[in-house]
C-alpha cells in the first residue's frame, strides 16, 4: 500500500513501538518545528515512554531544542534512539505545498487548525498502535485552555496538559521537540526539488523571512510566472509581497475584490436576461438573448477575432 502522504503531502515517520509502552501507562509529549519559516516543511513530533521511566528520560538531559546547537540536538536524538527499548517517537511532516494550498484554500484552513489536526492525528496514531496513554503534554503557541479542552474531549481517559513553552517544562515534550527539529533540519538541508531547476543553491539560511540569506535566496529563485518552487510557502506574506512586486499578476475567481465584482456582474446579467425575456413578449425587440444551451456552456458568437 502506498502511504496516504503520497496523495496528501503528508508524510509520517515513526520508530518501533517499545513493547513496554503497550503494557505500562505512558506519557506523551507533542511539539512542532518550523512554524515560522517561509521555506520548507513544518514537522510535528511525538515522543512517548512509560510514566515510570520519566526520570530516565530526565537523565538523558533532553532540553528545549531551541536552546541547543544542531550538534547537541543530533547527539540527543541518537541517545533517544538508543533508548528505544522504552522510548518511541513519531513524526508528521507537512510539506510546504500542503501548507500553502491549505492556507490559501477557498474555505481557508488556517495554520492553527492544521496544527491541531496534525497533533490529534499523531496522538491517535499512538493510541491505535497500542500505546497505553494516560498523560499527554502539548506545547502551544495559541490559547492553551481551549486547546486543552478540545484534546481532553477527544481523548477521554487521557490527562491532557497544554502549556506555552511546554518544551522547556516537560522532558517528554523536549524530546518530541528534538525529534521534530532534527527532522525539519534534515529535510530542509537536502530538499529534493520536484521542479526541474538544475543545480539549486542550497544556501537558504534559516528560512525565517528576516534572515538576509533567506531573502537573497527568495529573490534569486523568483519566477515571473510560477513564483516559486513548492519548497516555498506561498501563503507567507514575504513570498506574496515579492511575487506582487516582481511576478506577473494572477487573478482567481475568489480574489476578494474581483470575486465580488464578478458576482455582481453575473447578477446583473441574469437580471438583464430576465427583463429582456419578459419585454420580448411585448415586441420591444430586445437585445438578442442566446439560447440556454449556449449560455449554460459559456458559448457565444464573436464579432471579431
Amino acid at each position, binding site marked *: 500500500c502506498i502511504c496516504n502522504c503520497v496523495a496528501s503531502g503528508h508524510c509520517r515517520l515513526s520508530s518501533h513501538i517499545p513493547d513496554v509502552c503497550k503494557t505500562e501507562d505512558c506519557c506523551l509529549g507533542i511539539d512542532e518545528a518550523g512554524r515560522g519559516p517561509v521555506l520548507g516543511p513544518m514537522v510535528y513530533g511525538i515522543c512517548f515512554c512509560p510514566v515510570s521511566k520519566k526520570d530516565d528520560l530526565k537523565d538523558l538531559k533532553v532540553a528545549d531544542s531551541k536552546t541547543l546547537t544542531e550538534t547537541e540536538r543530533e547527539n540527543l536524538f541518537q541517545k533517544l534512539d538508543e533508548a528505544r527499548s522504552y522510548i518511541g517517537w513519531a513524526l508528521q511532516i507537512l510539506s510546504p505545498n500542503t501548507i500553502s494550498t491549505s492556507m490559501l484554500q477557498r*474555505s481557508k484552513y488556517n495554520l492553527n487548525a492544521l496544527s491541531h489536526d496534525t497533533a490529534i492525528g499523531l496522538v491517535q496514531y499512538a493510541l491505535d498502535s497500542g500505546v497505553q496513554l494516560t498523560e499527554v503534554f502539548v506545547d502551544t503557541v495559541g490559547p492553551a485552555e481551549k486547546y486543552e479542552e478540545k484534546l481532553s474531549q477527544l481523548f477521554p481517559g487521557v490527562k491532557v496538559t497544554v502549556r506555552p513553552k511546554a518544551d522547556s517544562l516537560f522532558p517528554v515534550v523536549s524530546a518530541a521537540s528534538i525529534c521534530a527539529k532534527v527532522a525539519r533540519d534534515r*529535510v530542509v538541508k*537536502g530538499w529534493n526539488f*520536484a521542479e526541474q531547476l538544475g543545480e539549486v543553491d542550497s544556501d537558504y539560511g534559516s528560512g525565517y523571512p528576516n534572515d538576509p540569506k533567506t531573502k537573497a535566496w527568495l529573490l534569486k529563485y523568483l519566477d515571473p*510566472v510560477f513564483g516559486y518552487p513548492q519548497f516555498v510557502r506561498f501563503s507567507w506574506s514575504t513570498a506574496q509581497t515579492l511575487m506582487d512586486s516582481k511576478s506577473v499578476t494572477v487573478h482567481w475567481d475568489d480574489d476578494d475584490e474581483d470575486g465580488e465584482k464578478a458576482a455582481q456582474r453575473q447578477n446583473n446579467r441574469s437580471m438583464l436576461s430576465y427583463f429582456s425575456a419578459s419585454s420580448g413578449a411585448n415586441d420591444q425587440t430586445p437585445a438578442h438573448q442566446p439560447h440556454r444551451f449556449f*449560455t449554460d456552456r*459559456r458559448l457565444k458568437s464573436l464579432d471579431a477575432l
Partner: protein
Amino acid sequence: MATRKKRTPNAQNDSWVVVAADSVIDSQKKNSDPAFVKLRNPSTDAASLYMFGSGDDQLYEVKAFEEDFHSWFLGQTVQQDGKLLFVTPMDPLYLILPYLIKSGKEGKFQPVDQVFIDEEFPACSRLLNCTRSLASLHHVAEEKEVGSLKFHRYSRDRTLNWLKKKVERTVIALKKRNISVGEGVKSTTYVRVKPESDHHEEDYLRYAHGLISEYISEDLSKALLQHLQLPELTSPKDTEPPLKKRKLSDKPVEAGEDYTKFNSADFARKPPKKMSAAQKSLAKVDKTGMKPMSSFFSPKVKAEKN
C-alpha cells in the same frame, strides 16, 4: 496578506486556441487557405465571425467558449486570453435565407447571384460558392429554369418544412447526447393537460426549436413554432438565466479531508504487532523533496526484518 491588484485588460492578444473540424486543415492541402470572414448573423442582423474553408467549399461557424478567470499554458508559453474557439461546419442556407426573403418580397423569380448584394458584408456573395448552397436552395425556394439560366423565389412553406426537419434532427441529437432540456419550462405557470411522455417530447421540441431559432429571424422562429404546433409561451420564465455553476458554490470544499483521516479508525486496521520500523515507513512515504531522510534515519533506527 498583500492587497489584490486590479485586473488589467489584455490589450495585445495575438494568439487563439481553436478546436476545428478536421476538414478545415484537410482542405488546406488544396490550393487556397481557409479564412475568417464577417457575415450578417441571421438572428441578430449584426456582424458575426464565420469561416470559409479552402476554395469556399464549406462554411463554418465560430463560437467562443469563454469563462471568466481563465488563461492557457500552450507549450512553453502563457496566453492570457482563456477563450477556446469552436469552428464547426455550418449550413450556408441559414445565412442565405435572409437575403432570399428580402428579395422575395417582390414575389418575382430572380437569378440568385443578384440577390446577394450587401454593402456592409460584401463577402456574402461567397456563400454561393459553397458546395451545398446551390444544391440545397430548393429547400427554401422554388426554382425555375429558362434555358441555361436558373431563377429562384423564396418559399415560406418549403422553408418551414425544411426547418421542421432541422428541428427533428436536433431532437435526435439532444436525446442521443443526453442533454437536459427540461428546466426551462418546468417552472412556468403554463398549465398542461397532456400525459407525461408528451411533456417530455414537447420539452425536446421546444429546446430544439430554440436552438434552430439561433439561426433564423424572430418572425420565422414564431412561424416555425406554429408549424410545429407548439403554443407560444409568454411566461418570462421560459428563458431562465443559465444554470449557476456548481463549482462556485460556497459549500466547504473538503476542508481538512486529509487530516480528519487521522481521527478515524484508519490506523487501527494496521496490525499492531509487527509495527514497521522507520526504514519501512520511509519506503512508503512520499519522498518528494525529502531525499536524504532515509539515509539519515536508517542507520539509527534499525529496521525489523520480517
